[in-house]
């Protein structure tokens, strides 16, 4: 199902449209905070009436510039993030009042020190486990971010504002999850390439109500099309789950190629997939505890141990009727790379096939990746 709808907005188009909206916000005296990672509690930014700008991190263009300061043997996402900032080629970075980073890995942690020389970069200290002490410390970090926003903008953020933000963000999460769960249908009603592109693209729309409306509309549309045209028609195309590192920078190289080779990408266990969406913020708990709990439960490989990710992959394989799992490792991402040992175990214990691809944003390994993907899909032929 690689048929893209006629009005399909590419990632580049969505990113570009976002520039204009951002400028408008800025011209009207609005607040903009740049973020990289799904661990940053967006509810607090919303409560501060600040737009969360998704900073550029998924192209190899600024990497040579980044490598003048950073080591070559570093994850392409970190190099690109810094490279865009250094070369001043990310409008989102440019328009941001300040940046909120987080310690999701050592590479980012240290890179943010260099980034801070270019623009104020505030770093949330994320603990790397989920015990009680970690939760306490992370709750403190959530409160510290609220205070940072208050100090920076000279405002007071009320509990009511945060509660409203939690409700709205939960609604948006549900809508996004509902869209991604279209992948559970068999045959697949929509290409994984479209799902991923739309989700990333919507990050550039800063009006959450509008975001929700767009994705709910598209979900309805796809569902109706499936009911009318595909329901009950079995497909022999293998069903693929994508897991691992953020894949925006390699979506064309891997996800599009997989679908062109005759498989359906139906599920995404990654930061730009269902990972952050599955657990909402508990609306009945005290707000900071609720936020801290939700965000600490994100199944990032920086957490040790991270058994909940294996459990989740196990469930996804059943729910999305997955035939094969492809894990994308961005070069030099040690935590995902090492954790792939357990992912492979989880997948093969269920009698499913597993392929790990380690790559970066360049096109140098396109041919090798094609051979691997082709061979992997040949092993899945029904």
């Amino acid at each position: 199902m690689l048929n893209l709808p006629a009005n399909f907005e590419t990632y580049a188009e969505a990113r570009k449209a976002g520039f204009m909206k951002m400028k408008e916000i800025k011209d009207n005296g609005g607040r903009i905070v740049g973020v990289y990672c799904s661990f940053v509690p967006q509810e607090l930014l919303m409560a501060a009436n600040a737009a969360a700008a998704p900073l550029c991190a998924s192209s190899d263009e600024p990497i040579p510039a980044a490598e003048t300061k950073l080591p070559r043997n570093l994850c392409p996402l970190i190099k690109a993030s810094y490279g865009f900032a250094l070369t001043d080629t990310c409008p989102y970075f440019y328009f941001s009042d300040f940046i909120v980073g987080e310690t999701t890995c050592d590479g980012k942690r240290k890179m943010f020190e260099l980034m801070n020389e270019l623009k104020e970069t505030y770093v949330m200290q994320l603990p790397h486990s989920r015990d009680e002490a970690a939760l306490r410390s992370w709750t403190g970090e959530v409160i510290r971010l609220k205070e940072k926003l208050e100090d920076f903008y000279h405002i007071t953020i009320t509990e009511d504002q945060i509660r409203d933000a939690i409700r709205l963000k939960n609604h948006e999460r549900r809508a996004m999850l509902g869209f991604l769960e279209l992948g559970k249908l068999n045959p697949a009603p929509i290409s994984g390439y479209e799902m991923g592109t739309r989700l990333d693209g919507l990050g550039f729309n800063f009006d959450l109500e509008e975001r929700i409306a767009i994705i709910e509309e598209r979900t309805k549309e796809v569902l109706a099309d499936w009911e009318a045209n595909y329901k009950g028609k079995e497909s022999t195309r293998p069903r693929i789950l994508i897991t691992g590192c953020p894949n925006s920078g390699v979506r064309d190289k891997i996800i599009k190629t997989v679908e062109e080779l005759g498989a359906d990408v139906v599920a995404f266990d990654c930061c730009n997939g269902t990972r952050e969406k599955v657990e909402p913020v508990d609306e009945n708990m005290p707000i900071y505890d609720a936020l801290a709990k939700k965000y600490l439960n994100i199944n990032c490989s920086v957490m040790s141990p991270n058994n909940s990710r294996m459990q989740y992959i196990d469930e996804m394989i059943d729910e999305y009727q997955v035939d094969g799992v492809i894990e994308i490792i961005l070069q030099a991402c040690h935590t995902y790379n090492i954790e792939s040992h357990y992912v492979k175990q989880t997948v093969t214990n269920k009698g499913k096939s597993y392929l790990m691809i380690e790559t970066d944003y360049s096109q140098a390994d396109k041919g090798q990746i094609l051979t691997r993907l082709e061979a992997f899909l040949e092993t899945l032929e029904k």
Partner: protein
Amino acid sequence: MSTTPVYFAGIDIGSTASKTVVLKDGKIEDYFVLPTGWNGRETANAILEQLKTRGYADAMRCVATGYGRICVDYADKIVTEITCHGKGGWAIFKKNMTIIDVGGQDTKMIKVIDGQVADFLMNDKCAAGTGKFIEVMATRLGADLNEMYEMAAHGQPLAISAMCTVFAESEVISHIGSGEKREDIAAGVIHSVASRVANLAARFGLEENIVLTGGLCESPYFIQTLSDKIGHPVETDAFARYAGALGAALTAAKRRDLE
């Protein structure tokens, strides 16, 4: 080629050598090897000429595999070398196994269970641990591949510690410069490749049976060295070099979607 096919050809265009196997009634009718040269399309045409001369082309179905598989524009289907080595290896050895294919361009490990590829691993980003490494060093020593294997068998391996082919070449040059014997350098080169392959194999995890396919299975010295480094006997077969082409031919004979 519109008549009912009688002959099923498998063509494996490797980076160094191109292998062809022709099946008829489930039996090997013919096989041959040609050097790949620099132009895959010309090689593919040369193979077609051979197939015509030998009288197969008019009633033939053909599957292409290998590094240059897309160059075979007359193929009815292209399939990756992983699947073909798995199928061909199964046909030759008839047991569950790990196939190690040391090719001219890359090194592959393929786990075959009940005739199906269950898992695979490829080293294709670096020439170390591939036939390319031996080729480069042979050129430096002024030998062809067969002479290289022959020399190595009579030498005491010198340590070649550089991981990168380019640096290892300088290491070899300095060995030459300090008057070391060619045999010892050649043995060092073979040992270096065998070590890299054994490391990859340990990472991949091996089945009870380990077999070697690809061009290097024609060097008994390499097989012995590899067995020693892995710590487990490595088998091969006189026809193992043709495993990929055989797998492709078997695919041509079986594929329903080509009917």
